């Protein structure tokens, strides 16, 4: 394990990934910042369509055409101590390929479709091993068996020759994790790995990821829309809305002192077992705008309860620090403007209380 646990492994600075379609430019990711230290878990949360998956793919440079990174920096610290900018690499080049699967691995939402339907599980694990490590086929096979064992697949040596359609959903995701871990990566990107699974399997997979992380010391970038999952595993949280990081900070700050109206709205929309009788669950007004109709100013303003006329719809808010590494993109927290807006808007209250007043 690295001597300095606090060392920054991945730093994403103002990355923008746009899709150039015939109908216009879709700004799927439009300025995201995050940083991840060794051994930590960072959760990226947001509604579907907010660009969190594209953001994850941008790191590995596997954004599908016609999308590409238009600006920003993705610094990654390799095993040998060198820091490289992934955003500058040729997405089809040799350099990025030596990162993929070796330094950074990724697992996807649907374990069924992320495994090849016509190859055995074993051949896909061995492929990852043989690609990056100088071992023989028989060694790779042995290693593949122990990996399947590690991720909790029973009768590992038999299952090695199974096809994906012969496994259950949970087992498939375990197999995907085994492939991802084949070369002991420093970073695991998990793109909604539990969304397609039922609740008990979901818990098993989350436990598995946590255990593996504790053993190996790898960092995990976890993409999800499930705040329950976030609460369970995250060290740090980034909340995304329409391709932006609207709020980021450590998990306690986000859950106990949410600042951005969007974050607060998200937290309020979780059903609570201790809520009062027959209370209507809070729901965000409106829906995520069409990607071609991005609202000007703060992209959240049409749905925002704290909307300030002539400001929110014209001024694009920057990232304002509200203590420690907790930052938020909202004009309410702009150091100079905050003073003059105090009268106009109540200081944001913690989620628990707001939830009760609705």
């Amino acid at each position: 394990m690295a001597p300095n646990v606090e060392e920054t492994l991945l730093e994403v600075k103002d990355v923008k990934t746009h899709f150039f379609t015939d109908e216009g430019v879709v700004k799927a990711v439009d300025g995201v910042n995050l940083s991840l230290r060794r051994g930590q878990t960072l959760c990226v949360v947001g509604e579907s369509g907010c660009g969190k998956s594209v953001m994850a793919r941008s790191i590995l440079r596997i954004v599908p055409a016609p999308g590409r990174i238009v600006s920003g920096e993705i610094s990654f610290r390799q095993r040998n101590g060198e820091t490289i900018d992934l955003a500058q690499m040729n997405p089809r080049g040799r350099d990025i390929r030596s990162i993929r699967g070796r330094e950074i691995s990724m697992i996807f939402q649907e374990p069924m479709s992320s495994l090849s339907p016509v190859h055995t599980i074993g051949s896909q694990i061995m492929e990852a091993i043989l690609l990056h490590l100088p071992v023989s086929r028989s060694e790779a096979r042995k290693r593949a068996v122990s990996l399947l064992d590690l991720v909790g697949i029973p009768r590992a040596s038999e299952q090695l020759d199974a096809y994906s359609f012969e496994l259950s959903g949970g087992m498939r995701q375990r197999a995907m994790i085994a492939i991802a871990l084949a070369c002991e990566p420093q970073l695991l990107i998990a793109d909604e790995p539990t969304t397609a699974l039922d609740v008990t399997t979901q818990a098993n997979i989350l436990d598995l990821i946590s255990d593996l992380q504790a053993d190996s010391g790898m960092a995990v970038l976890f993409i999800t829309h499930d705040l329950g999952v976030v609460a369970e595993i995250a060290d740090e949280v980034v909340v995304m809305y329409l391709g932006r990081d609207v709020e980021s900070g450590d998990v306690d700050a986000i859950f106990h002192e949410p600042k951005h109206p969007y974050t607060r709205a998200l937290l309020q929309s979780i059903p609570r077992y201790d809520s009062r009788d027959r209370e209507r669950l809070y729901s965000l007004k409106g829906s995520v705008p069409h990607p071609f109709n991005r609202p000007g100013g703060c992209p959240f303003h049409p749905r925002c309860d704290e909307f300030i006329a002539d400001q929110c719809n014209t001024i694009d808010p920057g990232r304002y620090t509200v203590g420690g590494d907790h930052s938020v993109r909202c004009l309410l927290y702009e150091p100079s403007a905050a003073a003059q807006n105090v009268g106009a808007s109540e200081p944001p209250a913690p989620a628990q209380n707001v939830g009760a007043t609705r």
Partner: protein
Amino acid sequence: MTSAPTQARDDARSASAEEAGSEGRIVVANQWQLIWWKFRKHRLAMLAGLVTLFLYTVALFAEFFAPYSSGAYSAAHTHLPPPQIHLIQETDGGPRFSPHVKGFTVQIDPDSFKRTYMVDETVAYPIGLFVRGEEYKLWGLFTLDVHLIGAAQAGDPVYLLGADRLGRDVLSRTIYGTRVSMSVGLVGVGLSLLLGVILGGISGYYGGVIDTLIQRTIEILRSLPTIPLWMGLSAAIPLTWPPLRVYFAITVLLSLIGWTALAREVRGRFLSLKTEDFVIAARLDGVRELQIILRHMAPSMTSHIIASVTLAIPGMILAETALSFLGIGLRPPVVSWGVLLQEAQNVRSIATAPWLLFPGIAVVTAVLAMNFLGDGLRDAADPYQA
């Protein structure tokens, strides 16, 4: 891109965005409008649609479009090659716009009786539009003598695409052939559709043993080599039958084997629609089965079926052409593209008169157009998909 399709798209978008509560004009478009908007974006399919429309217009008004009747022959003009069309005529008053073809002289080889035509620059036969020529009865009802194009002076030998071995005008005959060839496709597909919709619908709706049985039959029919079968079956059509009956016999034969693709399409649609929520909802509401099929399922299938039908017609046209070409499909005096191509059955006749292959160009054009059109329709058939 012009602004029209963009506009349409914007309309469609704001129509859906309206629900979301954002501001925008309210435009309600029904399914067919959406299909039309989506289809309009497909340039090639639009063009193909126009070509198809043109071909059917020609088929409908063949007598008007053709300079001569299909049977008119002239022994003096056998194998007359297509002339060069001159647009400007030198007159005493200087050059004047007057499309015409030059005259010709003929030499006959005494040994082989082969004719050689030489251009005679001194004679000019003017060409005109809406010229008066042979009388005809349009649809057997109206007696007319106006032809879209032809010799300005009735009786002048103007054979724009040359003449065949009996001195018949290739252009006129190809135009008359359009009527038969294009309608064989239509009638054949109509019959196929009837069989396909009934059997495919039954198969998809009831499932179970009936489905298996029909599916097996379809598979069997599809695994057979069709042309030898058609050859065998059509050879059985008695030579004594009148042309019209032969025509229907051939179309029935073609559709007896051709219905399978349509049946598959219908069945597939039925199966996927059967489990759609709105169909289940209708059933739970106690709507009668027939009504579910007619009111709820049929509308969402129609567009797909139209697309499949369009794609099935070219196959029919090609099959008719092939059979008639071999002389076991339609037979003279019926004029179809395949019957015309029979004139060009061997290298020698093509070498003498390559213009006899012109009906082949008509076949290729028709098939291409309907393929492109069908492809465009298929893409547009589901307007709610991205």
